[in-house]
């Protein structure tokens, strides 16, 4: 239940409403909650349940009040938690169907001979009329926007129909489902994910981006971890200040260790993405930057050019796994598939090679 008064400062800015999936859905709220939601100060017609912006709802309940006008019905709907007025406009189709229907008698006589569209249409209209015309005690499903008129909250129906529920199956399913929806969506506060994932992840992605930018900017062809270590220093320095304020002597990893750990993880990410690879696995860690490795580029281009001429690959071109094993034989055992795909992509962008399927390449 929403507290009656909400601090206007608590209202989330309207810019962000659309990011909440509940906003664009017909929320299946209890009528009690629909009646008690606070209306937005920024945009009248939008309401807040637990800070979720809501403007359209979906209810199922028993008709306990009814009034008919020329253009619309007013149904009071009771779901066992509250009663709300639903404004249900009659469609033009419906109004036509209400016109004197004696004329239809002649049509249906003729219809016995075969399919009579006019009579069928009339039947459809009668069906629709029936589903829109409810008596007290019948079950109504309404979807529509929430409005407040003359201090009374009501639902302006966009869809409404009578639900045939002779053994209460629909009502029971609804009663079982709605609490689940509340637990899974409406009662959970909506949070943008930005800061929820934790600090370490975001600093890792920051670290990889810093290294990537550096490699690109300086056109680095190869490097040792030591060369880029200092770039990540700012990420480490800024972190412990927050933690060390209240608990000073922690026997955790030193800043230097943290830095090395972060660098190791960042290089692993870059390696997995294929941005860098180690041509030779030796004592000295040297990383080659895939995109800048002219030798690798040439090797791959040569393989495709030569092998596409072979009868075996003439039709479809070379499969990516074939290229990979050839590159590993000729160039370096440590070229990863991710690195190969990165090079293939850039070769294709330059029209050096052509893909014939999502995993076959050839040259003309």
């Amino acid at each position, binding site marked *: *239940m929403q507290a009656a008064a909400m601090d206007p400062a608590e209202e989330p800015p309207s810019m962000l409403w659309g990011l909440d999936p509940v906003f664009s859905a017909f929320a299946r709220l209890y009528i009690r909650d629909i009646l008690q939601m606070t209306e937005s100060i920024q945009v009248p017609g939008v309401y807040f349940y637990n800070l979720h912006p809501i403007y359209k709802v979906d209810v199922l309940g*028993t008709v306990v009040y009814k009034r008919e006008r020329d253009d619309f019905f007013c149904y009071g709907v*009771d*779901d066992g938690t509250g009663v709300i007025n639903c404004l249900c406009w009659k469609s033009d189709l419906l109004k036509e169907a209400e016109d004197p229907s004696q004329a239809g008698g002649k049509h249906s006589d003729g219809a016995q001979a075969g399919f009579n569209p006019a009579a069928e249409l009339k039947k459809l209209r009668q069906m629709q009329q029936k589903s829109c015309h409810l008596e007290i005690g019948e079950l109504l499903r309404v979807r529509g926007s929430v409005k407040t008129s003359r201090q009374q909250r009501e639902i302006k129906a966009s869809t409404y129909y009578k639900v045939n529920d002779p*053994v*209460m199956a629909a009502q*029971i399913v609804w009663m*079982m489902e709605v*609490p689940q929806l*509340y637990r899974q969506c409406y009662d959970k506060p909506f949070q943008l994910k930005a800061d929820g994932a934790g600090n370490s992840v975001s600093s890792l992605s920051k670290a990889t981006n810093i290294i990537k930018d550096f490699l690109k900017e300086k056109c680095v062809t190869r490097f040792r971890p030591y060369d880029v270590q200092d770039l990540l220093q700012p990420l480490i320095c800024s972190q412990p200040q927050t933690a060390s304020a209240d608990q000073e002597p922690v026997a955790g990893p030193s800043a230097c260790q943290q830095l090395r750990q972060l660098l190791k993880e960042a290089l692993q990410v870059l390696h997995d993405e294929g941005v860098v690879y180690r041509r030779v696995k030796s004592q000295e860690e040297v990383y080659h930057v895939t995109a800048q490795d002219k030798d690798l580029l040439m090797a791959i281009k040569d393989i495709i050019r030569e092998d596409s001429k072979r009868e075996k690959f003439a039709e479809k071109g070379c499969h990516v796994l074939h290229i990979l094993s050839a590159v590993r034989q000729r160039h370096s055992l440590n070229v990863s598939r991710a690195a190969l795909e990165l090079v293939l992509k850039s070769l294709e962008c330059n029209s050096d090679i052509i893909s014939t399927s999502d995993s076959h390449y050839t040259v003309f």
Partner: protein
Amino acid sequence: MMLPSAAVFHFPWEINSGKVQEGGSVRTFGRLVCYEPEESRATLSAQHAAKEHRVVVHTLFVEPFNPIIGAQYIVLGELENYDGIGAMVRARVLNCVDGVNVALLQKAIVEQRSFFRERECKQGDVAQSADAT
């Protein structure tokens, strides 16, 4: 325009227990065991904990209706107290729902109640912690 108040689900064995105040709106269910048209009075019955519980329904507002003795009915209305009878539901709606899965219906009512109880508890906690700060 006057809307009636919400008819909250109650089990038949709660109707006579004094849980609901006079004038309160309720909805409940039971098997129709007896109908006296001259008195506009119907009696619903339900089994609970090896006991039979009866709910007397005033049917004036929903007449004429087709009484099927032995069938399950659902009733919406206001609780009134009468001398000699006790609590009686003045029906606004009386629907035959014979064939309803009563066990499942009871489960759904319990589910809904426990949800509301859970939520009120949580709000109580929030209010308390807000007071404390």
